[in-house]
């Protein structure tokens, strides 16, 4: 097993500047997400060309941490099961500007419908929400909704038809769910669940990693 030692003080898109989060555990988590995102992006680049006519779904978002940027490939979307609930949406109606919370935006969204697309990260990405399941069948009104994100690229104009087509394809994946096996079943897309499940089979267990770290530390002391 290769162990790579990372400097937690080093700034990255998830952890931010060292001063912003002093808790090392928090920074460790951020660093891990940062490294995972880099790997994900590399994998997307590697596989994107394998299916030139198809679209690729990246689990999570295509934007990179809280500083934006990230994936800039065409025919790639990010799908997130979890999203922030403090997000506010500004809707411009002529001269008036309306503010809407995510709860009111998604609470009344009917099954199979999507929200309008919103601009994010200073115009680098667009995102929208899509309701896979009726909220009446779920514990909370925000369950059963996925967030879809797409990079804004010159060569890929974001027309309504395109967003509808993507939404339709995602809706078609709503039927098989990992109900009973995963708490996020209501917003899981089954192919992503399967990919996640398959890759997790290859993970080392926490005990093995813990043992490797302890062993490495013991050797250092010797």
């Amino acid at each position, binding site marked *: 097993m290769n162990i790579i030692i990372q400097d937690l003080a080093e700034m990255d898109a998830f952890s931010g500047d060292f001063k912003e989060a002093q808790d090392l555990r928090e920074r460790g988590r951020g660093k891990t997400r940062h490294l995972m995102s880099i790997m994900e992006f590399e994998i997307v680049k590697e596989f994107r060309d394998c299916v030139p006519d198809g679209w690729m779904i990246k689990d999570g978002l295509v934007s990179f941490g809280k500083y934006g940027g990230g994936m800039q490939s065409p025919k790639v979307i990010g799908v997130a099961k979890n999203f922030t609930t403090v997000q506010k949406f500004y809707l411009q109606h002529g001269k008036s500007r309306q503010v809407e919370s995510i709860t009111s935006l998604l609470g009344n969204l009917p099954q199979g419908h999507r929200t309008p697309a919103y601009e994010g990260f200073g115009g680098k990405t667009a995102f929208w929400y899509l309701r896979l399941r009726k909220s009446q069948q779920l514990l909370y009104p925000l369950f059963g909704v996925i967030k879809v994100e797409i990079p804004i690229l010159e060569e890929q104009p974001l027309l309504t038809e395109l967003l509808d087509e993507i939404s339709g394809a995602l809706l078609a994946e709503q*039927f*098989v769910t990992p*109900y009973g096996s995963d708490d996020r*079943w209501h917003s899981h897309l089954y192919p992503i669940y399967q990919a996640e499940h398959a890759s997790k089979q290859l993970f080392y267990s926490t005990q093995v990693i813990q043992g490797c770290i302890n062993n490495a530390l013991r050797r250092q002391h010797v």
Partner: protein
Amino acid sequence: MNDMKGNPVIGRTSATDRDPNTADKFNFWITADVIVNPFDIVESEHFNSSKTYGLVTNLEHRTDAASHLANYVSNNFGSVTEEPNTPRVGATLAKVNVMMNDGGGKKPDGSPQDGIYMPVENERNVRFAVESGIHAALGIDTMKEENRIPAGLIKMSNEVEAVVYLDKTYVIGPESAHVNISGISGLATKTSYAMFLIQSILQKIDSSEVAVIIMNVKHGDLLKIDEPPKKLDEDQKALWLRLGLEPKPFQNVHYYLPRGKNGEANSFVRPRQFKIYGYELNDCVDKLDLLFSNIPDPTETIDSLIGEISNGLMYRTAKSPFAKVQDWQSLLDGPPLSLDGRSQGMGDIKASSVGKFRRHLRRMVKTRTTGVFTNRRTRNEGHLEEEIKKIEGGHTYVIDIAKLQDHEQAFAFGDMVRTIYEMFAESDETLNLPEKVLIFVDELNKYAPAGLRESPLIEQILDISERGRSLGVILLSAQQFMSAVHSRVTGNSATKIIGRSTSSEIMQPDYRFLDQDLKLSVTRLSKGELLVQHAVFRQPIKIIFPKPAYRQD
């Protein structure tokens, strides 16, 4: 993936923490589009390039759904109109009972390597067994060529076929003997299979060594076995030939039909040539106990009385009390049992017991007889015992009892069995007996029912079951329910054949030799399919067999 012979891999073994492979069992998942069914025989790669053969006993389809509720939710909470875009991941798993391991090659002295019975490891390639592999798995490969009796055809899901052979030494002795067939009626399995097996035995061994006695218990099923069938389909002929047998009717057949009240043959069908048999008192003197087989006799009073009467009749003189007893009528209504219409005591036996004896005897030989019991046989009517004593190897004797009353059937069967047993048990050089005699009887439960009750007939059948093997008297029996037959009879059968049975029947202890999974498969057997458990085989197998090549109306 194919091996050199083009036998494709159909899956790989799978061992998990909760469901490990063991020395007795292994599991394998099946690749998509491959069909595997219970009773298929497969081979798995194992250590030292050996092969482990196994019998598929059950199949399971598993998905990643945590519960049935997960599947319900996955269908949009119970909607049946949508189809999933990405189907749920699932795999079919076959459960296999290990039959044998071939050791993987030969020892320096040319003998086969010892089998390896360590569990098959995870991820080993699995294929359908080929015919030679099936023979090895069953132990047929080590059976001597001259001992092989074709018993049917294994037909696997991949259309591979293998002829199944029984070992002669385990069917007609001397290693073990007897065949018992069970299964519900109406599927043309039990009788057809028995007749097929008899034909197979006669064709594959020196038939002059074996005489066959067949009891016809239903309709005219077995009264034209020497005539060719009106029509035998080409595929049936091909099946006979595939088994290395000639589709032909029985030869040298002798039919014995019971006499009716009018002296004519009392039979559903009349063969081209036949003899009529009947029983007068003198024929039955030493067999009266068989007549009372089904009469409860807890104090053995009737048994004592029968002893007195038999002795009296056998050694009667002009001065003995039985001097005037000449036929059934005079036994029933004359001295010494009766005087002026009233029953008389005999020695210690009270008049009331003699009265009971007379009532039963009157019912059996006079009021309720179909005519087989008669005061005097005519010259055309033979004595069955005398006819049986003339049996020869290479001949088949059919005794019709289909139209007889139950007590008459039991008596005729008991008479035949006792005669045969005594002939072979007390055989000396003066008797020119065949080496073996094969007795086939259907509805054995009538004659040797399960339970603790003993009767002269049961004792007779048990004698054959337990000692017939060494004497050369082989019982080929059939019944609907094995559980209804005396366990010592079925337990002594080295070969058990099972046709479709009900689930309540196969849960009886008599079917302990079947794996739990296979038991359920027995309820699904189709017409013409049978399960064979043979002393040589390591697992029961499913076979098909050809239709009889004799006339069936």
